[in-house]
């Protein structure tokens, strides 16, 4: 059933990126490159204590410093906002108090409590040193495992630290457990990590008092979230918010929503009526932007004598920090529902809780609910070990096969017939040479070398078609000279949409990709932006529909002008020709010029102009799937783990640009490798972040990431074009695959890891405690 959907002239090709000429020559325009006349600079004073009352705050000396324009406290700024609610977050749900700056007390290290506006960032930071603040320390809530029971409350207004508690028991699950041959139980822990876009957050806001317009440049994944929520914060209409979208240096979820600092800058810029810039520094980014993956899932799995998965019981707990970015979320519920993943599984009971702590707020990070794959895939390897079965064989026994599809998971999710978990499992096993590896591994052990292989198989719900996420629009206009401008609500920040959307438009409309320019931000129609593996399907659906609408008109005009039948015309690379008679042709420019400048020559009754707007509504979910396999070597003397091979077999449906797809996978895999082996936002017991520089927060370098081999299974989805989302997948599959590889290498020592990071110290400790 592989790939019948048409690859086009450009779709399916590794077209070189249209973004690159400017980016490789230093001519990108990121938010910090914006300089406006009279622009001022903001810096935030942040709490050094995890929880404390502010007993004194005197800004007199700071205000008196030459070059300082204003110093704002929470009392100054907070009353000016209308609502800080992110658009995904229901207004009725309980939430931390809405404030831009801490007022009265601080609730995590990094909590901003004062904002200085000065002529330069240097002076603004000088002024922060002059702010006289005194704090009375309070006992912080740092450990999320005990937060729910703590007598100390992160947000006293909420009366407790439990943010969410959802439980969905399944009575038949108990029954299945009673009849199982094996019940295996483990609690799997992830640890605090952060997104680390290479460009930190940042915003430039410029208020035009007489027009009542706020003009904004922001490092954002979602210019329309900035437009909508920014307008709400300022108490103005969205038609008075002009959000420019330039180059954005990565986000991985961090730039989907407005931060408290973004809102403070908007409000301050309006109060001061001066252009105002804030560029987050790296320390702020690492300690106060957002953290993620602070979670654990207790899993019990019932398995029969043949290794078939009978039932599971799940208990998920996640740390929301103090001020979760984008609002308190419940990815745990999603993780639980997705737990069965690409396997046949009996009844599942689950509970998911989220708690507040006096730490940096949780935010979305590439694959925000990937705990489902982490817990399931690590659990399957554990089951294999407990029942004495090969982990690949165990997966083969339970994996969903084409004959099982469509499939309704016991947690209520439905999988369409267009997923291919079994195919990707087999392709990955083939690529890595599974049987040969097992022989090599045994041989290596004879020589005192410890190799391990890990695998992870998953299904990812991409391109979710509900609520604010459900649609995207494209406004496409062929200009008089035949070139094409398309305006979309996306926020490409590395995903190559300027190229991939141009490829889609090029094929659908019949032009070359380089004839198409994508415009995002101001002037585009509402869209949720770029994130959630949604752009290929949802934005792509809109681009395709807009292009198709224009193409129909192009053909009609050309047919009229050339006195040919529309059915006989083909359009490619900006030339409309009569099929079989290439000499009979005209250019897109000629058609466009007619549409705009000689409209009397158009077919009778046809509207002048050559433009079309389309909005695409996605189905509830378009599932992609993949299998990761990797091989590591563990040095038992130092505990260091090196990855020797990494293989991904994936199915994202029809590939728009294979080079871009491989790049998305590779980036996610590197983040997963980083998460398991290197990265950790460590807090001490008092709630001090200990990894607030790049010397302590260890993003992997080229030396830590192995060569990646990718294979593609192409089962087109039912959406237009047959695409599926692929942006997050790498970061979903990699953590459990890497973890399982290390666990496999540790098996000869009798060690059973259940938490990350698997840094050298931890690994050596596991070996030591297993041999005790």
């Amino acid at each position, binding site marked *: 059933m592989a790939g019948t959907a048409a690859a086009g002239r450009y779709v399916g090709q590794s077209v070189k990126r249209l973004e690159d000429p400017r*980016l*490789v020559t230093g001519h990108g325009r990121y938010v910090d490159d914006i300089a406006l006349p009279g622009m001022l600079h903001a810096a935030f004073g942040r709490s050094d204590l995890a929880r404390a009352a502010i007993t004194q705050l005197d800004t007199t000396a700071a205000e008196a410093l030459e070059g300082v324009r204003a110093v704002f406290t929470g009392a100054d700024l907070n009353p000016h906002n209308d609502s800080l609610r992110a658009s995904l977050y229901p207004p009725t749900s309980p939430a931390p108090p809405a404030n831009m700056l801490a007022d009265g007390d601080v609730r995590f290290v990094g909590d901003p409590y004062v904002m200085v506006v000065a002529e330069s960032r240097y002076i603004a930071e000088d002024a922060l040193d002059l702010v006289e603040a005194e704090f009375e320390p309070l006992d912080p809530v740092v450990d999320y495992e005990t937060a729910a029971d703590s007598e100390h409350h992160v947000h006293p207004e909420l009366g407790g630290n439990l943010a969410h508690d959802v439980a969905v028991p399944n009575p038949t699950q108990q029954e299945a457990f009673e009849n199982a041959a094996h019940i295996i139980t483990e609690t799997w822990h992830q640890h605090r990590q952060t997104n680390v876009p290479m*460009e930190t957050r940042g915003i430039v806001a410029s208020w035009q008092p007489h027009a009542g317009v706020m003009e904004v440049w922001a490092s954002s994944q979602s210019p329309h979230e900035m437009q909508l929520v920014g307008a709400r914060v300022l108490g103005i209409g969205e038609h008075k918010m002009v959000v420019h979208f330039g180059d954005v240096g990565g986000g991985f979820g961090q730039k989907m929503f407005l931060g408290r600092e973004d809102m403070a800058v908007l409000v301050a810029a309006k109060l001061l009526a001066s252009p105002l810039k804030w560029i987050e520094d*790296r320390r702020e980014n690492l300690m106060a932007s957002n953290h993620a993956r602070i979670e654990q899932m207790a899993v019990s799995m019932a398995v029969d004598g043949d290794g078939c998965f009978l039932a599971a019981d799940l208990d998920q707990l996640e740390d929301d920090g103090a001020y979760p970015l984008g609002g308190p979320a419940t990815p745990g519920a999603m993780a639980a529902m997705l737990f069965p993943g690409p396997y046949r599984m009996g009844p599942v009971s689950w509970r998911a809780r989220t708690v507040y702590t006096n730490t940096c707020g949780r935010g979305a990070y590439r694959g925000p609910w990937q705990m489902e794959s982490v817990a399931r895939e690590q659990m399957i390897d554990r089951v294999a070990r407990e029942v004495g079965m090969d982990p690949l064989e165990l997966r083969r026994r339970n994996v969903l096969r084409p004959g099982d599809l469509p499939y309704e998971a016991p947690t209520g999710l439905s999988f369409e017939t267009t997923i291919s978990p079994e195919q990707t499992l087999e392709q990955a096993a083939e690529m890595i040479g599974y049987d040969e590896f097992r022989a090599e591994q045994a041989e290596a052990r004879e020589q005192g070398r410890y190799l391990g292989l890990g695998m992870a198989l998953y299904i990812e719900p991409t391109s979710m078609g509900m609520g604010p996420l459900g649609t995207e629009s494209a406004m496409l206009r062929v200009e008089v000279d035949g070139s094409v401008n398309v305006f979309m609500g996306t926020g490409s920040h590395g995903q190559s949409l300027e190229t991939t959307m141009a490829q889609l438009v090029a094929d659908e409309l019949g032009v070359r990709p380089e004839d198409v320019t994508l415009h995002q931000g101001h002037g585009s129609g509402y869209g949720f932006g770029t994130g959630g593996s949604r752009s290929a399907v949802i934005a792509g659906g809109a681009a395709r529909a807009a292009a198709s609408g224009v193409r129909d008109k192009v053909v009609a005009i050309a047919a009229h002008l050339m006195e040919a039948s529309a059915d006989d015309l083909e359009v490619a690379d900006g030339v409309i020709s009569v099929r079989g008679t290439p000499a009979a042709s005209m250019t897109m420019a000629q058609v466009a010029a007619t549409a705009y400048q000689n409209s009397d020559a158009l077919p009778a009754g046809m509207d002048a102009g050559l433009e079309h707007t389309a909005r695409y509504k996605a189905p509830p979910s378009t599932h992609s799937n993949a299998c990761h396999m990797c091989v590591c070597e563990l040095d038992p003397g130092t505990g260091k783990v090196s990855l020797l091979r990494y293989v991904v077999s994936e199915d994202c449906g029809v590939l728009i640009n294979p080079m871009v797809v491989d*790049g998305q996978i590779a980036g996610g*895999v590197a983040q997963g490798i980083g998460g398991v082996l290197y990265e950790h936002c460590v807090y001490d017991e008092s709630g001090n972040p200990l990894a607030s520089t*790049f010397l302590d927060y260890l993003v992997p*370098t080229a030396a830590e990431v192995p060569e990646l081999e990718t294979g593609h299974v192409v089962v087109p989805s039912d959406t237009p074009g047959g695409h599926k989302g692929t942006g997050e997948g790498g970061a979903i599959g990699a953590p459990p695959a890497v973890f399982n590889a290390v666990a496999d290498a540790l098996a000869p020592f009798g060690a059973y890891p259940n938490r990350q990071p698997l840094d050298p110290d931890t690994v050596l400790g596991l070996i030591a405690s297993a041999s005790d």
Partner: protein
Amino acid sequence: MADQKSLSMTVNGRTRRGRGEPRLTLADFLREQALCTGVHVGCEHGVCGSCTVLMDGEAVRSCLLFAVQADGADITTVEGLAPDPETLHPVQEAFRDCHGLQCGFCTPGFILSVAAFLEANPDPTDDEIRHGIAGNLCRCTGYQGIVAATRQAAAAMRAGE
């Protein structure tokens, strides 16, 4: 407050003059006064490599130098690497060919580091490439395209000489 110093250096072949306090970093001078916004500031503590420039031909972190220290120096930023506006340097070309960039923020620093690395190691092995470029961080590409681009650029630069 410390005195402003007058500054003069050659940036991409042209003399650039300016003023600044001694604490003004070279990165900020290049961005704000020489208007080379291709110099990206990613960490300001010398780890990420985004702000890498060539100073008198050697790759350095411009966030760890004060502009006053570069007074009289010859600086090349990514804007000055290509021979002319119509042509890309082989390293720039290779980054585009091999998808060595996604968001593009780390890219200028990487390109200058790779150019300097290949100058010293014209025919590196893959392992030498991986360790040689480990002083620059990228969060998007997983380094696959960057390693491939370095390979391609090495071959192109050897062939071009």
